[in-house]
């Protein structure tokens, strides 16, 4: 009798599940990634267009349309200028893609449908990978446009351009992990987006300024914005040699302050990786404990 029961479709599916548990777990995550990509494609198209237009408006059109506008002498300088505002786009994109990654399931109560079926962790991993794919594509479009422009204007591409691209990918990943942490305990998506943007765009800089007054010799290893400067300063010829002057001192309103420009390559990567680890561990803990 039991054997007959085992032959029905559902039981066969469950037997299959036991045999291929890892495969099916990965499949669930893959299905979630695809769903997440389909859900957010309009947002992605918007950012892709913004990225493209940003490069076009700031790094291509002025040199093509205005003959008096001087083209930087080296490609290093050209890319350094072209990437000046890049981090702002990435911060805003990351906040919009990741601000609601966890809290929206609670505030919109979609978790009641998704969590019993997929599980919190698998749903989060799927959504995270889906989001990071779009962030990487946005970065890719930015760099591709800038790279084509560099190739067109200078005839070849320097290797440092690719290194900067890799740093941008690592930095955005760290940013997304940090925003996911905020989303894991904040109440709703709007609050999460506002707080993330405030911290990453404003709070981080205010803290750095205060620290430069209070402890001028203390290098701001706590700052993700500071770490992200390696994306730009990698184009300095002395940076990879470790000979670059990474800070300068200034007097402002009678105070001597130290302005830190960029961390060393190793320190920058260490800050980013630390952000990832320190953000993701509590994110999973909060996710596990948070109740609908």
């Amino acid at each position, binding site marked *: 009798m039991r054997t007959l029961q085992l032959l029905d*479709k559902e039981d066969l599916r469950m037997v299959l599940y*036991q045999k291929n548990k890892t495969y099916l777990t990965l499949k669930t995550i893959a299905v979630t990634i695809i*769903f997440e990509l389909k*859900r957010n494609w309009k947002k992605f198209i918007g950012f892709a267009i913004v990225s493209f237009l940003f490069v076009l408006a700031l790094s291509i059109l002025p040199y093509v349309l205005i003959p008096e506008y001087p083209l930087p002498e080296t490609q290093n300088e050209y890319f350094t200028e072209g990437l000046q505002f890049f981090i702002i786009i990435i911060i805003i994109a990351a906040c919009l893609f990741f601000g609601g990654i966890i809290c929206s399931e609670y505030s919109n*109560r979609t978790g009641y*449908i998704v969590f019993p*079926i997929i599980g919190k962790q698998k749903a989060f991993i799927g959504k995270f990978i889906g989001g990071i794919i779009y962030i990487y594509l946005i970065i890719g479009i930015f760099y591709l446009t800038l790279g084509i422009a560099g190739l067109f204007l200078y005839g070849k591409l320097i290797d440092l351009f690719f290194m900067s691209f890799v740093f941008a990918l690592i930095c955005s990943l760290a940013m997304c992990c940090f925003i996911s942490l905020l989303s894991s305990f904040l109440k709703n998506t709007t609050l999460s987006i506002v707080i993330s943007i405030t911290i990453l765009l404003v709070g981080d800089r205010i803290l750095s300024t205060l620290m430069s007054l209070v402890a001028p010799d203390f290098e701001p290893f706590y700052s993700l914005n500071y770490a992200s400067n390696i994306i730009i300063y990698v184009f300095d010829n002395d940076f990879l040699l470790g000979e670059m002057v990474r800070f300068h001192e200034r007097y402002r309103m009678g105070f001597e302050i130290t302005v830190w420009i960029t961390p060393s390559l190793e320190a920058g990567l260490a800050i980013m990786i630390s952000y990832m680890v320190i953000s993701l561990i509590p994110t999973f803990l909060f996710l596990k404990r948070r109740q609908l």
Partner: protein
Amino acid sequence: MAEPVLKLINLKKKYGKFTAINEINLDVYSGEIIGFVGPNGAGKTTVIKMIANLIQPTSGGILVQNIKGELQNIYSKSNNYIDFGFLIDQPYFYKDSTPKQVLRYLARAQHYPKKEINNRIDKLLKMFNLYQWKDEKIKNFSKGMRQKLGIAQALLIDPKIIILDEPQTGLDPKARIELRTLLRKLQRNGKTIFVASHLLHEISEVCDKIALINQGKIIAFNTIENLENNLKTNLIECQLLKPIKNKNNNIIDILIKALEPYLDMNMISELNKKPIYINPDNNNLDIYFDGSKESMAEILDILVTRFKPEIRLVSFAQQRTSQLERIYAELLNEYNEQKIPSTIINKGENVAIAR
């Protein structure tokens, strides 16, 4: 006796000092429809959330049958238990998605055979009259449509156990009737169904057993018939052609005297301390009698022959729903006053209520 497919053992959930669920024991057998009934805040959704693994109990456990037919802890890592379908609270979906996209995602995430997904989705959407909106964004859906979609997703992979929390919420009367028909059909197909509701009359018609829950405790768990029989109070609702002229309760007293041998004189009702009263909502005459069919016949006979000028009957019927509602109200009342002996609190067996 067959093993239950779902077993709640001393299930307890505390939020700080507040005990939301207090030592609940419940056995659900294959093919049963269990009604889980209680007032708002009784703990119904909390129990369902624990079954859905959305929250963990403070103590106790939930066992579910696995594919080998053995009971297995729902929180164990090897989740090879039989499939569940859930509708928890009011369903909310990703607003910018369409029903087809969401159902397809949920079906694929649950490893439903890929070739059959489209047919299954179409079938469910047609069943719930949502087919013409399958490509519309869910943000444009009404509450009732979202509810129907929620029930559809609970049935998506044809699960063996279906758990529905207030499924009738937001549905129009026609859809409610269709839902009851659907539940019966699912039961005939061997599904085990667990329906939570605060509206007893909505689910009493389809349930094999009803578990009454109040303040986090199950105060009764039995078949509807047994619940009624053990309380031994029954209601006849008499619809009258015109309202009774009842000066100083005189006619009621005369009626009670005339029908006394057939009435339930020990009844304790929150509505009236007398076994006969005029329902102020509809001017019907409500008579609480001893429950026997002979008594019912005698009461009808007396009303028709001896009270003809004052009382002219349009209908004379035993109201099952009203009785259940009254049982429910009485049980809650008695439980709150601690009149129910501890022996009738369910201990995992199907215990009848005895007074």
